């Protein structure tokens, strides 16, 4: 029992706030295994994995920005329209104004920044709820896309398509695999080991016992195993395919934004604002600046996602990005973010996005129609958030925690009185 507890506590992070994420990873694994069986091994085949990543990288990129928006206590409904708007402008800039494609990408990001500044201004400085601002933005930029593109499609040149449909190049000796992908996998494996060592060092510096060695090794073994498996799969696809460029972009963004949200003051401030904006303000956090930033950042990422989508489908069209906002929001909430803000992680949102992606993909492979796919996705989202809400009403803990509750009496250190108990006399003191 105690070993099991150790495992549960230490395998993925440790604190209770990660328990939800821990559950999500297991859900993801379970879904993958389920579909692997149901589709007779189609799910984990190289070409399917590659397609899965290419088809979902832009949603996952949106999920990164959406996570920050939701943690800060807002929402962004406009991302699909913003993506489409940036997409059409970028496509036009290359076909009609002959902008070289690298410049067009910069141009696209700049469009995202301007749109983000517009939305951030209304949210942060005027105080219009983000729901309204971005609902307006959803109409505004969808209309803008169709106005500029005359509701028709605009093709994009070859070089630009790389960011959506390109792969890591082939080079070096013929190993039967894509060497670049193998090297990427190796780097990832080394990074995992390095991080584990760092984490143990940090734990020791905090005079806390690091997790038992066997757990560290088990954790590393699992992660390295997963990475090795994925690398081999991606590297062994049809010749000319390998790990997609859009996947690389996603990877870089995940690492950068995870670092930003976890390890910098700016990231902390987003959580502080979402957790208790008044307390954050009284601690010197510049509320308006944080709100402005998360809204602006979201639109920049939306523009990027739009460009990747356009590059993948080789043309920008009037219906690009329809419904993306909902996929991104669903990913974030399935990934454990709290509806009220203040809670959530980038990695959780990515896992949430992957759950949706695998679900989508697996059901499609099984020949389930989009009607039923939607029904199932809707139920999954509802269930995931219902669990979150239920846990909160039970004192904001994991399912695991609530299952353990009846047995916790004999636990050490009574955690003091429940927080609500003291509110009453405090109130009495105010008005009595």
């Amino acid at each position, binding site marked *: 029992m105690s070993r099991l507890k150790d495992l549960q506590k230490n395998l993925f992070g440790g*604190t209770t706030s990660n328990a939800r994420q821990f559950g999500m990873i297991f859900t993801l694994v379970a879904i993958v295994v389920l579909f692997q069986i149901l589709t007779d091994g189609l799910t984990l085949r190289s070409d399917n994995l590659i397609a899965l990543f290419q088809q979902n990288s832009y949603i996952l990129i949106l999920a990164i920005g959406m996570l920050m928006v939701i943690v800060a206590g807002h929402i962004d409904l406009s991302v699909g329209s913003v993506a489409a708007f940036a997409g059409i402008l970028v496509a036009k800039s290359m076909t009609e104004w002959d902008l070289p494609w690298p410049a067009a990408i910069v141009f696209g990001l700049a469009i995202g920044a301007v749109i983000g500044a517009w939305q951030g201004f209304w949210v942060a400085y005027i105080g219009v709820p983000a729901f309204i601002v971005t609902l307006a933005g959803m109409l505004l930029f969808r209309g803008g896309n169709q106005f500029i593109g005359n509701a028709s499609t605009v093709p994009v040149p070859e070089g630009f398509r790389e960011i959506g449909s390109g792969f890591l190049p082939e080079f070096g000796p013929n190993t039967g695999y894509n060497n670049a992908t193998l090297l990427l996998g190796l780097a990832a494996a080394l990074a995992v080991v390095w991080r584990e060592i760092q984490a143990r060092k*940090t734990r020791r*510096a*905090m*005079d*806390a016992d690091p997790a038992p060695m066997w757990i560290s090794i088990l954790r590393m073994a699992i992660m390295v195993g997963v990475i090795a498996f994925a690398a081999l799969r991606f590297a062994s696809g049809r010749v000319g395919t390998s790990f997609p460029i859009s996947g690389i972009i996603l990877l870089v963004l995940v690492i950068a934004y995870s670092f930003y949200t976890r*390890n*910098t*003051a*700016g990231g*902390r401030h987003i*959580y*502080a604002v979402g*957790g*208790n904006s*008044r*307390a*954050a*303000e*009284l*601690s*010197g*956090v*510049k509320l308006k600046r944080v709100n402005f930033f998360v809204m602006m950042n979201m639109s920049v990422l939306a523009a990027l996602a739009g460009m990747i989508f356009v590059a993948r489908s080789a043309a920008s069209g009037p219906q690009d990005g329809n419904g993306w906002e909902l996929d991104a929001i669903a990913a974030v909430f399935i990934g454990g973010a709290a509806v009220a803000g*203040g*809670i959530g992680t980038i990695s959780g949102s990515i896992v949430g996005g992957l759950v949706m992606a695998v679900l989508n993909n697996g059901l499609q492979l099984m020949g389930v129609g989009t009607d039923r796919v939607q029904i199932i996705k809707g139920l999954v989202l509802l269930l995931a958030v219902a669990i979150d809400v239920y846990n909160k009403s039970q004192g*904001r803990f994991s399912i695991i925690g609530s299952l353990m509750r009846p047995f916790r009496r004999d636990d*050490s*250190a009574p*955690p*003091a*009185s*429940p*927080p609500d*108990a*003291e*509110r*009453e*006399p*405090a*109130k*009495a*003191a*105010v*008005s*009595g």
Partner: protein
Amino acid sequence: MSDVPILLEMRSITKEFPGVKALSDVNLVVRAGEIHAICGENGAGKSTLMKVLSGVYPHGTYDGKIIYQGSESKFSDIRASENAGIVIIHQELALIPGMSIAENIFLGNEPRKRGAIDWKAANRMALDLMARVGLEEDPDTLIKDIGVGKQQLVEIAKAFAKDVKLLILDEPTAALNEADSKHLLDLLRGFRSRGITSIMISHKLNEIEAIADQITILRDGRTVETLDVKADGVDEDRIVRGMVGRELSSRFPDHTPKIGDVFFEVRNWNVRHPISADRQVCKNESFVVRRGEIVGFAGLMGAGRTELAMSVFGRSYGVYESGTIIKDGKEIVLKSVADAIDNGLAYVSEDRKAIGLNLLDDIKTSTVAAKLSKISHHGVLNEVEEYQAAEAYRKELRTKAPTVDESVSKLSGGNQQKVVLAKWMFTDPDLLILDEPTRGIDVGAKYEIYGIIQRLADQGKGVVVISSELPELIGLCDRIYTVFEGAITGEIARADATPENLMKQMTSTKKMATR
């Protein structure tokens, strides 16, 4: 008087919250047709007692008996007590601003005709009720369009719509101007002559003296005495003595202050209300703080102490109008909380749960939240330094928690307060403003917090303590300012401070002899 029948008797009411005994053995006897005042300091248990009576705390959550109209009552909720004719009117009015007077009066109690609301009847009945409370308005007028005095009358009309027998008013005149207050008091006299019994909680002792028949005084959750205003010849001084008379010794750690020179000064501070711009919340206030000194701010609720503190702390409240802040001989301009923190100010808010802490955070995140730059290098947070800082404060302040990874929402009030103190000590402030630092904290933790405050002063910092508990101010502070209606009305050295003279200056604009 004793031949008048008893309407309500509360017998040895005891109400406990975890760690705090809010009421112990409280007795209250109210006779039919009288105006009965309940007096006591903030936190004496007045509101708790009224919540017990009105069923907010249902039968079974307290000990003792409520005998109402001759039989024991066991109210399970507010509705049950209202059905029995007991209606409480809270200090914060429970009206819906966007609805009309008539709609508010009959909210939840709408007259119906064949399932639909009968607005004709409602308006007719509303007019009748409004006449009884002397409110001359169109019943279709929206609540937000009438003044707070008239809103109070709507509340009372609402009570009449429920066929009230016992009317409870919690600080009914706190938000009213003099004319509205007078009207309300006249109204209460009128009710008395018509046989309606009222219980009135008020801090305004002159009003109580003028209107009440009986006064029950509570202190520290106990009944001190019940006075008959006419028979006992009660005056304000007599009430004050009953309210504050308690031993002060040994509730505070021994301390010899080491007071230095004036280093912080606020001059002619004027601030307006953030929404109603014609209301001035700080009226030309000036004060000084010396190094090593603990300075108290005494005042009743709503006197504007928190507003003063927060407006000084980076203009985090209200609209700044004029005034200067001088620190170490230089004028400083604090336009934001970040400015204030950078200039060595810290403000510990009165409501740690609502605005002091992010309850989603753990102890270590909370500890460093107000000065992340101290644990950052090139913008990157150092987890180890964060842990070490939090752990050091946990040990120093003896915060009871297994580790600094514990969520602050799981801590008791006293320990949460220690985390908030640690958060602000971590910013290395020169001046700490502590707003109600011991509210909702049990006696033992209070003693520890007092010790921490004294140690901070001994380190040469200036400490400002805002408190509604006079004994706390007298026991802790080296000097006390009194505040009344947004103005500083007095300054009293510790040696001269008594609850009586503080209370006097807190309740009147008249300046007494200042030092």
